[in-house]
């Protein structure tokens, strides 16, 4: 049987574990809260005449609130799900799937693919909510650049996925995921007053990338985040090779 067919079965198995009862409840509640908030900030219940008079203000307000909210909750979603899926306590099923070096490689590659798949679906849900609201709201405008914003959000999410899983492997406890949350929170605070930051504080933002403003622009460019993510992937591989399964 070829690797592709095996990988499909591994992905299916990972998804069965990833979509556990606890995680499904979390996903439903998370999406419900997001949906309510998106509808709330859209001012959909405002009178049409009020909106008509200030279309651009309403659009900017919605756009700003939408992406400021999304970049916080999406990254937190990635970190929380990573903690539950990549924690050592959760890796107990690896003993059913790893039988040699080849299956160990397939196991981990497909595990990350499965997680990225769920993240991608979540982002798809958020972006569909965004475009659907823009389509029905009187002030709605479609800009192609917003697709880039969602893509940058996905890059940032991938960075935090590999960063969290690296920390979990390194410290062998799911509590290590808190470091990831704190680092994101710090970069969030610091980036808001970037121009007045000291050199040392700017270095902190170099280590923990952050998307600024509603367009989620990276302070040191998208390439910086991609390079960091690649480094983290390599570090994860190294830890997977040397560490013992649960």
């Amino acid at each position: 049987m070829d690797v592709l067919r095996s990988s499909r079965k591994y992905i299916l198995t990972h998804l069965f574990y990833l979509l556990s009862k606890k995680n499904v409840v979390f996903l439903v509640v998370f999406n419900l809260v997001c949906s309510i908030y998106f509808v709330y900030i859209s001012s959909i219940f405002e009178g049409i005449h009020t909106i008509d008079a200030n279309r651009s203000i309403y659009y900017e307000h919605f756009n700003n609130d939408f992406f400021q909210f999304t970049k916080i909750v999406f990254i937190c979603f990635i970190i929380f799900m990573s903690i539950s899926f990549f924690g050592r306590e959760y890796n107990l099923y690896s003993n059913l799937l790893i039988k040699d070096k080849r299956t160990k490689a397939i196991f981990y590659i497909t595990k990350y693919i499965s997680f990225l798949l769920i993240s991608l679906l979540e982002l798809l849900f958020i972006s569909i909510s965004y475009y659907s609201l823009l389509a029905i709201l009187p002030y709605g405008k479609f800009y192609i650049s917003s697709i880039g914003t969602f893509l940058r959000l996905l890059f940032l999410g991938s960075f935090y996925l590999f960063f969290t899983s690296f920390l979990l492997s390194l410290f062998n406890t799911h509590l290590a995921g808190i470091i990831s949350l704190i680092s994101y929170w710090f970069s969030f605070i610091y980036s808001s007053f970037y121009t007045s930051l000291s050199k040392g504080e700017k270095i902190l933002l170099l280590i923990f990338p952050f998307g600024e403003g509603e367009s989620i622009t990276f302070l040191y460019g998208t390439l910086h985040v991609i390079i960091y993510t690649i480094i983290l992937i390599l570090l994860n591989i190294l830890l997977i090779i040397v560490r013992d399964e649960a």
Partner: protein
Amino acid sequence: MSIDIINLRKYYGKTYVLKGISCRFKDYQKYLIKGENGIGKSTLFKAILNQISYLGEIKVEGAISYAPEVVNFPPFMSVYRSIKTFSTLTSDIYDFDNKLDYLLDLFNISKYKNSMLGSLSKGQKQKVNLIQAYLTPSKTLLLDEPLSGLDNESRNKFLDLIENDTRTVIVISHELTHFNKEDYNVMELDNGRLTLIKKIHSNSPILSTV
């Protein structure tokens, strides 16, 4: 040979669990490994399966099927789906459905074929675990405490099944009395070393380090 182990060492922190094990598990033979709790029996299996890092060399010929002692099945997967998934991860099984029906019937869990794994008892899950390992196409079968949680009837049926299996079978078990020792090479893991206590088809025990 099925599995060749050369100077296998494994330590956790400063504690050596396996202190230079060298042995050969031959084709078509059955091995029974005994030893006290925490002595490193499961660690030996995990090293063979590449689930842990180790020092030394392990050469494996052909595929391995494995029934772990602690098994964590996805609760929302059905019995049928899980056995099919786990036993055909790397290669397909000819006439899978009929073989599965036979084994489910043998272990009296046919009626749970479409039940979710989360609804099964510990003993029923252990039967699922053993069936998935038994069905997996392989050259070697590794069984870690296979009799744990099984009722007497199922235990005897499983032992019959294994005794008639032509693959290399390596079993870790505390319950040695249930095995027909005439069919097994009995080994003991103690103080990080593996010792052959009784060789197959031999009435007198041979004490030697393998």
